[in-house]
């Protein structure tokens, strides 16, 4: 009985986003497209929470659908939780945002249907990847997320968005081809382990027998997958696609790319790191710290010179991915724990930042930092949220990102990596300075453009939202407001109290690896 429930639950979690995508994209249902999306995304979140409850009841033991192929372990559950949560909030945000873009005549109604379809398929592909317990299929899943999201990047069809999508597909695919080569070398490394014959890419088995794997081939496999998945995660020097893709896609997608897609690539890296033989761990950690530090070094100067608000946020993602990889390179359960917590915090704060920046540039009609002035007068609510998101992303105490950054620095210093630790402190301080400058410049001053005042009637959201609620939120529709409030609430409290169920889940995931 339990078994059937488990299997059904996992199947539902996998299938639901695709069903939502197809239903919401149907011409016949276009009148109720928004409700279909909201229902689909919220049911997905509820199912995920239910699955995690089951996981807690069994104290972290995985829910299995197909042994060796599809299962939900603590790490997978953490990823799916993140995808379902941010996916739900991005859906709420995306409905009024895209409705306004549509009203402004930026795309046709058939393009709108295509967007809705791609968005939910994208979420579905990431969830499927997170449930894959076979490293080969995990690779396939990650590649699929690249391809689907490339079509959302090129959505507006502008020359620049096509350029961004093309760069993204090409760099992503070359990276993943190298990762595939890495998997082939991983296979070679397994050929003399009798337990692995016939199921060579089963992660669980690989994890158990990791010390029997041939070390020279494993090192080669690790380097190739690090380059491959690192390209996908936006680690420098393979990050060139990232700022383009993030700045050219519609804002709900930018948020999802930064908050979820990059993490999905890191999942591939995490699973690979966890099957490294113990003798090679030190070397692998050194590599991770090097590439992490490199990403920090690379991102900081670019953050200082950005004139485009979404590109600024994109480089901040490169910085945070670098920090996460640094934490992984610190090693041990505490390093992995800090890395996963930072993943969560970064996702929350960065989706909030992209969403609010998207809304501000929609109202101002530009992404140029220099042309956005006085946002706090023109749109107090969104302006306030934006300020919080920027301060949060810069790692200001006492917000959520500060907590995990502090944890990572502490781990780095206690593990004796003083140089990278110092580097990280310096980078974080510099980014803070840059972010504060930009935020102040955008929030204060007098609005220059006529569009500087968001008129509530223009910015009304979907489904006949009551006027009063709209006025209260200062020209932001109710759905958008909800997604802002939820994310902002976590940024505010997440530095002081982390829900104990979240820390338990992350601890299980970290111990698993």
């Amino acid at each position, binding site marked *: 009985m339990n078994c059937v429930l488990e299997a059904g639950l996992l199947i539902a979690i996998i299938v639901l986003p695709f069903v939502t995508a197809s239903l919401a994209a149907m011409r016949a249902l276009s009148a109720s497209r928004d409700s279909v999306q909201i229902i689909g995304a919220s049911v997905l979140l509820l199912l995920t929470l239910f699955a995690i409850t089951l996981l807690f009841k069994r104290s972290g033991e995985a829910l299995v659908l197909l042994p060796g192929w599809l299962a939900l372990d603590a790490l997978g559950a953490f990823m799916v939780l993140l995808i379902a949560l941010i996916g739900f909030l991005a859906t709420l945000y995306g409905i009024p945002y895209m409705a306004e873009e549509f009203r402004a005549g930026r795309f046709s109604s058939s393009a709108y249907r295509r967007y809705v379809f791609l968005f939910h398929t994208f979420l579905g592909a990431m969830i499927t990847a997170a449930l894959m317990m076979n490293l080969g299929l995990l690779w396939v899943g990650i590649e699929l997320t690249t391809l689907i999201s490339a079509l959302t990047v090129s959505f507006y069809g502008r020359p620049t968005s*096509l*350029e961004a999508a093309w760069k993204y597909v090409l760099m992503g695919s070359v990276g993943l081809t190298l990762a595939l080569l890495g998997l082939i070398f991983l296979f070679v490394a397994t050929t003399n382990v009798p337990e692995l014959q016939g199921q060579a890419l089963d992660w669980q088995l690989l994890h158990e027998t990791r010390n029997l794997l041939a070390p*020279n081939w494993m090192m080669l496999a690790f380097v190739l997958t690090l380059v491959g998945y690192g390209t996908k995660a936006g680690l420098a020097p393979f990050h060139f696609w990232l700022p383009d893709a993030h700045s*050219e896609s519609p804002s709900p997608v930018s948020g999802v790319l930064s908050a979820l897609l990059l993490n999905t690539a890191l999942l591939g890296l995490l699973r690979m790191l966890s099957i490294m033989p113990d003798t090679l761990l030190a070397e692998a950690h050194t590599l991770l710290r090097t590439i992490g530090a490199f990403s920090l070094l690379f991102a900081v100067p*670019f953050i200082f010179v950005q004139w485009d608000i979404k590109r600024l946020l994109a480089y901040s993602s490169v910085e945070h991915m670098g920090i996460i990889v640094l934490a992984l390179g610190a090693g041990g359960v505490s390093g992995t724990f800090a890395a996963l917590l930072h993943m969560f915090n970064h996702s929350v704060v960065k989706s909030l930042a992209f969403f609010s920046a998207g809304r501000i540039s929609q109202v101002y009609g530009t992404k140029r930092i220099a042309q956005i002035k006085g946002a706090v007068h023109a749109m107090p609510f969104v302006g306030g949220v934006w300020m919080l998101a920027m301060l949060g992303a810069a790692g200001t105490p006492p917000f959520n990102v500060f907590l995990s950054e502090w944890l990572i620095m502490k781990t780095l210093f206690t593990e004796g990596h003083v140089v990278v630790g110092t580097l990280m402190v310096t980078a974080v301080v510099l980014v803070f300075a840059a972010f504060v400058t930009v935020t102040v410049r955008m929030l204060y001053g007098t609005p220059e453009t006529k569009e500087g005042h968001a008129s509530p009637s223009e910015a009304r959201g979907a489904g006949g939202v009551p006027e009063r609620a709209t006025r209260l939120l200062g020209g932001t529709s109710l759905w958008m407001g909800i997604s802002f409030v939820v994310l902002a609430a976590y940024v505010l409290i997440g530095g002081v109290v982390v829900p104990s169920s979240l820390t338990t889940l992350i601890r299980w995931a970290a111990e698993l690896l």
Partner: protein
Amino acid sequence: MLDILAWLIWLSTLMLLFVRYLHQAVWVVAGTSILLSAMSFVLFIETREGGLLIAALLTLLVKAFFVPGYLLRTLQKVGRPLETVRYLGRMGSLLVGLLLSVIGGRLFSTWASRLALGPLNGPSTPSLEHTTAMGRALGGTDVLMTVALIVLLLGAFMMIDHRKVLMQALGLVTMENGVVLLATSLGYQMPFFVELGIFFDLLVTIVVVGMLSYQMIEALGSMATDRMQRLKG
């Protein structure tokens, strides 16, 4: 037999650096794919492993028929024969291709002696030729592995050299061919579902590439990437 096929694959990959029109390049890729499929089939005859037959059929179906067919259809939508554009020109590209082949061969011999044939650290290194039935059938041939490495390099070079997006995509397909060849030369048979997934991926990649390049022709009037230099920093 296998060695001959491998050298033919190398030759046809080199041809990609020399062809004048895009549709010719697509035909060359179809030819390469048929050679790859034939290689899997020959291995199947020798080893009787069912997986190889499936691989041969899938390669034929996906890489030799669907991918070229889809790309040719995209090209037909454009209506006129499109020329290839290379940074180094046709002769220059061919020359670099030959140079890369020599480098790839040299690289292989050092690489093989360091990794596969002489254990680097520890006694647990598998000796490749005798671990699987396929490895035995291959009889430890170095030609296949050398060609695989060269094809990988040539694919990467194509992506840098060519300025038309479709040719860059063919460079990607070529790199993928290199990986598959390398897997074959190591005697590696992917689990069935994984293999299926990889083919599915390739299909989706090509469809996405086709859609993007068509959008580009509509928006930019060209598939050349030199019109796409606006995003910087």
